[in-house]
């Protein structure tokens, strides 16, 4: 054991025998590692934001809907009232209260919105303003007027492109026309049935999400108004969208809900199931990342190898002396490995210091993507203009471990070379 500690001390001192070289190398490697950490943080953060935004503009981390709704999207498919109350009960339990950020019941339908100037077909979302405010992003994207409030029953908020097409502004009158939902049990002869209902509404606010599909199509109105308009019985809704504090809990929550609601004609979907395209984009990104990270690590590894190997090669005389003095090959090898690890440790110190501080800046102030994408934001990525870095401790730890392992493995070749130093050739000075 003592010799082991001694070896470590010697390795450390050896590394510092060439202070300038060591520092330079460590700086460069550290920079590479810092970059790795920063990009990991930004990419992870980007992912989180993409998910969060997708989830918050859409059906939440977990969505409960009538069975078959995901496929058909028919506004006839509603959640029975007792399902809704079961869900509510479940959400009140302690375990759920811990993970839940909010729950938003919604009624979804399509209709025609008309103004004096024009009409547009829209997707109607009936919401409870208080719940929706807590979870959805639309209330935070108002560019004119204000979001719905519980005390204004006839107000609606519409997307910016809808407003433009209809040539309306806050306070303008609009008429919403939609087909009432067929009551269950009525004889169905036609494929699409139901009376046409119209109602007068006033534009309370206009929002812009930046997502064309939403801005040109979506309107929000108070749930009771939507229910009346659509003739929905018994306070039914189309969907209950759950928003969790941590996306990671989605699966667990979905499982529990499925158990609770077993037998009911409902489907409980995590966001991966309700928005498969989002899941796929992230899958692609992940693959991308692995390739990138692999290459970066490999390059860092090469840098370490280069440095250690070169040093080994020019210390033949020294190794010869060591061996002549009784140092065993295995010990010599360990010393080299130790030096590699020492160099790595110093590099990591720089890397972590630089990387984590920059990452911390990006985690708090964020990286303004508008500076990067001057032509405008890529709509495909669906992120805020400010990208926040999210580097989890697990990521940092695993990166450090991987780097150390790599440094160890990489140093085997130089270590081997050092161990095989042949006496008496090594002692020949010239």
């Amino acid at each position, binding site marked *: 054991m003592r010799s082991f500690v001694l070896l470590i001390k010697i390795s450390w001192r050896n590394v510092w025998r060439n202070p300038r070289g060591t520092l330079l190398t460590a700086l460069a490697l550290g920079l590479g590692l810092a970059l790795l950490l920063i990009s990991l943080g930004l990419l992870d953060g980007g992912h989180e934001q993409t998910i969060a935004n997708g989830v918050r503009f859409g059906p939440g981390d977990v969505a409960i809907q009538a069975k078959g709704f995901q496929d058909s999207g028919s506004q006839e498919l509603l959640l029975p009232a007792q399902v809704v109350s079961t869900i509510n009960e479940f959400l009140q339990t302690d375990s759920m209260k811990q993970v839940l950020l909010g729950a938003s019941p919604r009624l979804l339908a399509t209709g025609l919105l008309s103004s004096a100037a024009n009409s547009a077909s829209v997707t109607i979302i009936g919401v409870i303003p208080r719940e929706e405010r807590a979870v959805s992003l639309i209330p935070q994207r108002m560019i004119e007027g204000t979001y719905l409030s519980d005390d204004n029953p006839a107000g609606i908020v519409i997307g910016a492109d809808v407003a433009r097409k209809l040539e309306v502004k806050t306070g303008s009158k609009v008429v919403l026309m939609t087909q009432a939902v067929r009551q269950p049990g009525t004889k169905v002869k036609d494929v699409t049935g139901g009376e046409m209902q119209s109602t007068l509404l006033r534009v309370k606010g206009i929002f812009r999400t930046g997502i064309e599909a939403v801005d040109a199509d979506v309107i929000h109105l108070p749930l009771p108004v939507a229910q009346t308009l659509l003739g929905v019985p018994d306070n039914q809704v189309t969907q209950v969208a759950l928003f969790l504090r941590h996306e990671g809990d989605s699966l667990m929550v979905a499982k529990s809900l499925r158990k609770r609601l077993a037998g009911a004609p409902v489907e409980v979907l995590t966001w991966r199931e309700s928005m498969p395209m989002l899941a*796929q984009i992230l899958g692609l990104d992940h693959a991308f990342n692995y390739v990138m990270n692999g290459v970066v690590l490999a390059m860092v590894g090469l840098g370490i190898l*280069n440095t250690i190997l070169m040093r080994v090669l020019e210390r033949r005389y020294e190794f010869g002396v060591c061996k002549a003095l009784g140092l065993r090959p295995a010990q010599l090898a360990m010393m080299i490995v130790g030096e590699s690890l020492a160099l790595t440790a110093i590099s990591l110190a720089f890397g972590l210091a630089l990387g984590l501080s920059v990452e911390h800046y990006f985690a708090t102030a964020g990286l303004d993507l508008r500076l990067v994408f001057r032509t405008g*934001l*890529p*709509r495909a990525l669906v992120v805020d203009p400010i990208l926040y870095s999210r580097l989890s401790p697990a990521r940092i730890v695993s990166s450090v471990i991987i780097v150390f392992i790599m440094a160890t493995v990489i140093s085997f070749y130089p270590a081997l070379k050092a161990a095989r130093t042949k006496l008496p050739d090594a002692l020949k000075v010239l």
Partner: protein
Amino acid sequence: MSGRLLQLAWRNLWRNPRRTFIAMAAIALGYTMLLFVACLMAGLRWQMIENGTRLVLSEIQVHAPGYYPSRSIQKTVGGGKGTDVSALLGAITADSRVYAAAPRVYGYGLASASHGSSAGVALMGVAPDQEPKVTALNTLIVKGSYLTRLMPNKIVVGDKLASVIGVEVGSEIVLLTQAADGSMGNDLYTIGGIFHTGLDVMDRNLVLMPLASLQELLHLTPARVHEVGIKLYDINEATAVAAALEARLSKTLPVQVSAWPELAPDLADYVQFNHGVTLVLFFIFFLLAVIGIMNTMLMAVFERTRELGMLMALGMRPVQVIGLIMAEAAGLAAGSLVLGGALGAPLLWYLQKHGLDLGGATGEVVSVAGVVVGHLWYGRQDFSAYAQAAVGLAVTALVSALYPAWRAAHFRPTEAIRKV
């Protein structure tokens, strides 16, 4: 820089072959990896652009000015009278960079199957013989067959649309639309084929039919088309060719010619992002090069303190010493490039021919920026990226050598000679 100096530099490098080789090998490997990633990224970009444009969009589009964004049926190329379509196509293909061009007509309407279910659809009329040269929807037919000029009433729809209104190959379908003169254009068609693109919006809304049939339905004369789609030999020339075409065609016909970055800005953004990622990797590679070269040169310089001191005592000027060291570094870089290139070439060839299979990580098919990407990534040669990396390396080498060179130049000959 005198040739003698360069010779000297090169020989100096090889006086310690192992060290030089190791440094070269490290940098060469880094360069190889860079080539690999650049090739892969280029392949991914190309695949995305191809997939984005080859389905329907095409690489360049020609319209009447003001056609976008309203896409009014009235705004045909050449105005209400239209234009000589074959002459227009000829004028376009006269540009040797153009591979093929095909005319299109668009409309909106209602598609209804015999048992009453109807759906709003986007109608696209294409020339069955020419369109397959420009886009590739014809390769995505899963049931039945593509359009043919010989059967003007056979149309092709997406699989989601087919299931929503309940039709299959051979079913009858009515298309109802508002014709150009305001009347209700309507006619009977048969489903000739069903396609599957993987893109929901197309599979659910698009109806493809022969150009002449749609013109008839919309009460448009054969001279009236809304768009000409163009495919090039080299898609990278899109923006340049679009500008050239617009300048040339506008002399006789008012047109607006747009290349795919304008038509699919999401895609263009993603491509830019992709470039950005590659640049980051470049940067890391240069860091690696700095380590390798600076270390090597520093060692080389300090080892030869006595020798350099002697050279300077004999009259070599500091500037020349610097030149020598820099030349050695340049040599190192050059050697690395050659080695890295040699190692990389077979890798690149493999990547281009067989591709990288990411099967498990992404699942069957992915849709990004409105484009479908498979799990098999093919590489594509990106010579400009390779060259940029090489130039960057050369510059990095010279910069890395500056410090060792500067140190060397500042040796005091009297002290240096005495160094053991």
